């Protein structure tokens, strides 16, 4: 498990293209507070744009409270409002499986990309 970027979670939302990227390790204690702004940005984007939102994950670890926040973020993409690119280290089957579990719970298309 490559966790050198323990403190380097990247969350960036491009308000022009509607692309959200979440990369690194997501294991903060206050994930509800941490992702609140991201959820607001997506809500505002979906209100003012008819384009789809793409959420690109490139994580090496996430904790259970982050999983809940990911569902809250991705549920906004249901009803054909977006899709998910789930990038995972090619030798990390755990991260692939944890992405597959999120896919089961959501009506959002996922594309899995080993990197």
């Amino acid at each position, binding site marked *: 498990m490559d966790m050198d970027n323990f403190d380097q979670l990247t969350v960036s939302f491009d308000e022009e293209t509607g692309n959200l990227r979440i990369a690194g390790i997501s294991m903060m204690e206050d994930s509800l507070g941490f992702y609140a702004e991201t959820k607001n940005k997506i809500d505002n984007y979906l209100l003012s744009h008819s384009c789809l939102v793409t959420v690109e994950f490139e994580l090496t*670890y996430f*904790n259970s409270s982050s999983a809940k926040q990911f569902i809250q973020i991705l549920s906004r993409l249901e009803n054909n409002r977006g899709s998910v690119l789930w990038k995972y280290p090619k030798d990390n089957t755990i991260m692939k499986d944890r992405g597959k579990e999120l896919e089961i*719970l959501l009506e959002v298309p996922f594309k899995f990309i080993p990197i």
Partner: protein
Amino acid sequence: MIEVFQNIVRHGEDVEESKDCFGVRCIADGLHIYSSNQINQQAHSFLNSKLKEINKLSSEELKSLYMEILESTELSEKGGAGLGLIDMARKSGNSIQHNFKELAESAYQFNYQLDISAEKGVPLKQEQNIDIHENINIYSNIDSNILFYFKGDFSKDNIHSLLSILKANTQNDVKSNQLNSFNIFHTGVELIQNISRHGRCVNEFIEGVFSLSQEKSGYYISTGNYLNEDEISNTEEYLLQLNNYSVDQLKQVYLQTLKKNALSDDPGAGVGLIDVRRYNQSVIDYEIHKYDNGSYLSLGIFISIIN
């Protein structure tokens, strides 16, 4: 702290049955940094004479000696020429407590303690300090299988450094198998954050314990924390129910619970312990005891290692 830790690396001997350890105790007015490691005759002679010399010097004399060595080109084979020891004595303002226990011919257990006052630039008074023998007794009674032990405040701000230590150690120790590394780290994260979230505040902080120990065929993580009185029966019921699920049922339970809780306002997902149980495929050991401060939950799980 780094200097004390590096002291083990600098002067320590590689031995199979090691009693080496490093620990920090923060008690009221001071921080007590302790290390214990096996050394050879040469290191014993060097440390014994250097520490005797350092402990006789005033703060001004320590400063002069430090500058003198720094300006000279003479460094010991191990690289420090005692600079680290002098620097620690300067920072502490107290004598460096130390003790050599002869183990066998040419082998000693070197116990070392640095005491630092919470008040900057002020040495600890004698009545505020801890005698090194108290720490020798405490640390030598810790089970030798314990790799890491933390007792203290599990508030949000405090657990970040705890998780950093866990991350650094799980990454190195079990690198050969990704699942082993993930299981130990993930179990640690979920249990530590569980205490932070559900642990009861006692004396103005969330008092808890976390330990990681090595077993014959794996690792064991145990935690302890006080419970809020209104959560006792729910916690017991929940753990009993969780342990009754078969391994095959757990993935379904995880998905159903995550889905059910996903849209609630509660910060947690309510699946941390389910994850701990399903990834390790072990039952969660638990006990709830009544103490004067309230009900205390002790919890543990075995993490088997896949070769």
